[in-house]
């Protein structure tokens, strides 16, 4: 910053002491000039480290006094008094700091400052904004500054300037623009400016409509992919094997906790590779859940095949024990799983549509798991055996298939996929002992709706339920949407008791 506008000792004194009104006036003059020494003084005042000795205003840094005007170190006389700012002055100082941060060297804090100026449009900040615009190089910050400038001009006393700003602002198609226009529309009195404001509002709203629609679709897809992950494991254990596994939600929970543990280990032992922890956590979550699943199958389910209601009760018992087990080990509180850096943030697809990276990655991940499972079931030897055992256990056994081992592997596979779902869920939601309980009803609904033994049905049901849920949420709120969806499923099952894709057959017991 040039020294031509350097702080004069008179200004420094006016800022530091005297009538609050005069001090504020001096402050706004200093802010619109935005020079280095003024910035330093204002910053020191917000931190309460300014003293005044006679005509000299002194900044105290690390116990040493610096003259605010000359910037040279000086002695600190015993007679120096603290500069005292009342609450009003303090508020003004904070605002000034925000404005001055527009000239910070750090782009992120410039962006933040521009954003905060946009939230509280003030015509007095127009010169400041112009100055910032002239020196700004980053496109994104420039556009925010332009919008803030237009917003500030909307409050200008001159109707001609307001009219110009009202037309100009329509080129910024963001949700904030709508907010600003609505705010201004409530206060505006001049009829032609009102018309211009309303016109801009319509224009911006029309432009944003697409973004809103796509946003709902995306969150729906995202929810659908989470449901799909949660339900894919069930599609194996329930759909193929006919086991009602009420502990499925807890296997998801175990996958999420496995991710939490891996994350903790990376933080402690491999902090440099922290961003890569998910690559390790995903297979670990799969293995841990698969192992737990295999143990459950060997110890309990093995004895209950063909008795679905008993299986339901026994697996419910298992789920209670798993929940309490996790509570004993990790505590009843939720644990924090931190996203790796590459999963935080999002892709700004449209001005009002940000697609978070973690959601995008989960959609991709769900697709990969789905493809992997479809290939596993249709192409591999294990898949062939699983299908054989499901279709006709006795014949499969007489062909030499070890049906007991296939049961264990298939159940472990379904459980492992639940673990994968847990690893994914840990990136978007809370991880706690009750995590699984929230998904068990939903994932059963998906499998029941999709039709038993049908991967394609599961996919359609999961995505359909996800999008439908989010659409209704926009209309009626989250809880009512969920209730409406449950009622719709019950009605749907009236019509098609076997789900969307029913296996055609003659069995009376189907």
């Amino acid at each position, binding site marked *: 910053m040039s020294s031509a506008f350097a702080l004069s000792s008179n200004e420094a004194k006016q800022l530091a002491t005297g009538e609050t009104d005069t001090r504020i006036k001096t402050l706004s003059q200093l802010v619109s000039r935005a020079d280095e020494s003024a910035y330093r003084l204002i910053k020191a005042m917000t931190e309460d480290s300014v003293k005044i000795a006679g005509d000299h205003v002194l900044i105290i840094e690390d116990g040493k006094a610096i003259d605010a005007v000359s910037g040279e170190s000086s002695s600190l006389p015993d007679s120096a008094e603290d500069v005292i700012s009342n609450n009003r002055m303090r508020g003004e100082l904070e605002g000034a700091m925000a404005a001055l941060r527009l000239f910070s060297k750090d782009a992120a804090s410039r962006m933040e400052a521009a954003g905060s100026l946009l939230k509280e449009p003030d015509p007095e900040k127009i010169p400041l904004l112009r100055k910032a615009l002239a020196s700004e190089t980053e496109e994104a910050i420039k556009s925010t500054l332009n919008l803030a400038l237009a917003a500030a001009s909307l409050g200008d006393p001159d109707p001609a300037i307001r009219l110009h700003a009202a037309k100009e602002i329509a080129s910024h198609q963001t949700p904030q623009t709508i907010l600003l226009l609505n705010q201004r529309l409530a206060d505006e009195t001049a009829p032609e400016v009102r018309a211009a404001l309303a016109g801009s509002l319509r224009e911006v709203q029309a432009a944003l409509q697409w973004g809103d629609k796509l946003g709902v679709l995306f969150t729906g897809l995202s929810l659908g992919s989470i449901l799909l992950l949660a339900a894919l494991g069930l599609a194996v254990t329930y759909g193929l094997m006919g086991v*009602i596994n009420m502990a499925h939600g807890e296997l998801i929970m175990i996958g999420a906790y496995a991710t939490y543990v891996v994350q903790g280990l990376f933080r402690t032992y491999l902090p440099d590779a922290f961003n890569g922890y998910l690559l390790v956590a995903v297979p670990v979550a799969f293995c841990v859940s698969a192992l737990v699943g295999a143990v459950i199958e060997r110890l*309990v389910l093995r*004895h*209950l095949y063909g*008795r*679905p*209601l*008993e*299986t*339901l*009760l*026994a697996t*419910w*018992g*298992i*789920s*209670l*024990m798993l*929940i*309490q*087990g996790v*509570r*004993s080990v990790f505590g009843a509180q939720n644990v924090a799983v931190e996203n790796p850096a590459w999963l935080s943030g999002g892709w700004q697809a449209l001005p009002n549509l940000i697609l978070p990276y973690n959601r995008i990655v989960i959609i991709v991940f769900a697709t990969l798991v789905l493809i992997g499972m479809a290939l596993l079931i249709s192409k591999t030897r294990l898949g062939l055996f699983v299908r054989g055992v499901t279709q006709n256990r006795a014949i499969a056994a007489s062909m030499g298939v070890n049906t007991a081992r296939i049961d264990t592997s298939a159940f472990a596979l379904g459980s492992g996929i639940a673990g994968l779902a847990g690893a994914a869920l840990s990136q978007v939601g809370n991880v706690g002992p009750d995590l699984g309980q929230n998904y068990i*009803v939903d994932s*059963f*609904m998906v499998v*029941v709706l999709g039709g038993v033994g049908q991967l394609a049905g599961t996919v359609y049901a999961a995505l359909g339920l996800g999008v439908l849920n989010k659409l209704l949420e926009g209309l009626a709120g989250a*809880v*009512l949407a*969920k*209730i409406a969806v*449950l*009622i719709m*499923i*019950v*009605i749907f*099952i*009236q*019509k098609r*008791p076997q789900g969307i894709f029913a296996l055609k057959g003659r069995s*009376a*017991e189907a």
Partner: protein
Amino acid sequence: MNQQPSPQLLPYQSAPLLSANGWRGFIVALIVICVIAPVSNVWVPENSPFHLSDYAVALIGKIMCYAICALAMDLVWGIAGVLSLGHGLFFALGGYMMGMYLMRQIGRDGNYHSDLPDFMVFLDWKALPWHWTLSDSFIATLFLIVLVPGLLALAFGFFAFRSRIKGVYFSIITQALTFAAMLLFFRNETGFGGNNGFTDFKRILNIPIATQSMRMTLFVLTGMCLLGCFLIARYIVQSKYGRVLQAIRDAENRVMFCGYSTLQYKLSIWTLSAVMCGVAGALYVPQVGIINPSEMSPANSIEIAIWTAVGGRGTLIGPIVGAFLVNGAKSWLTVVAPSIWLYFLGLLFIAVTLYLPGGVIGLIKKLTGSRA
């Protein structure tokens, strides 16, 4: 008690309601509930070993309500083979109907001294919502306790059984039903007190509710209701209607091919069972003093099934025994070692399904049978 359903020769002969031993046991239970318990609670001095403490009265009263639920569950699950995971909903609905009446009985004694229940004042409502219209009348409340769970069960059962939803499908859908209802009752707008539900009851029929005599009255009433439900259930099981239900449980398709419309049988027992649960809930609320949406959580409903399974399903007396065993263990363990309780309950689920398909009653029968 009588034996498990045994093959009967045609034509059907009606079996006695209870055996001689059964009647003896029934009379003993009646005397214990109606005479011994009140005497030892009210008139026996507190330091006597025969004194029944107020805590025990409250606990046993509560468990008797649960036992009615378990009995109702046995009728649909043990006898007709339809496992419901939504019976907690009917229990809670009966409780809510009673709770609404009790809320109105508070009158102006609430914290805000308003004509409306406190939570409505808190939500700034000016008048009672429409569904509270009948809540001032005790007679109407008695009807609602039967009608609300009954009609809901009738409507839901009609659609579910008509489209031949059975087995696990049915169980999961009933679970979804109670889950949806829980979400609905958690909302403040639905007018059932949201999260907190109803509590702070003051009186019933204008008589203060927190007195020893009122507690004892409710206790005796609950006990007689339990015994009454048991006789009804027993009558059903011994009748031809009950035999058809058991046939449906064992081979529904064969029953249909024999010309029976299984829809009517299943629907009627399902509705009756829901009504029993509703009554149990209505008796439960004044004794426990609170009703909130967590009673509708799927976990509660599935616990009813475990009481039935522990006692021995299809035996009628078993579920009552099971309700007492499990809930007795629960109230003991949650005091002694709270963290153990869920492990214990979980193990119980697994152990009973794996090793005790006949429940405690089945075990006793096996042991006495092998000795004889």
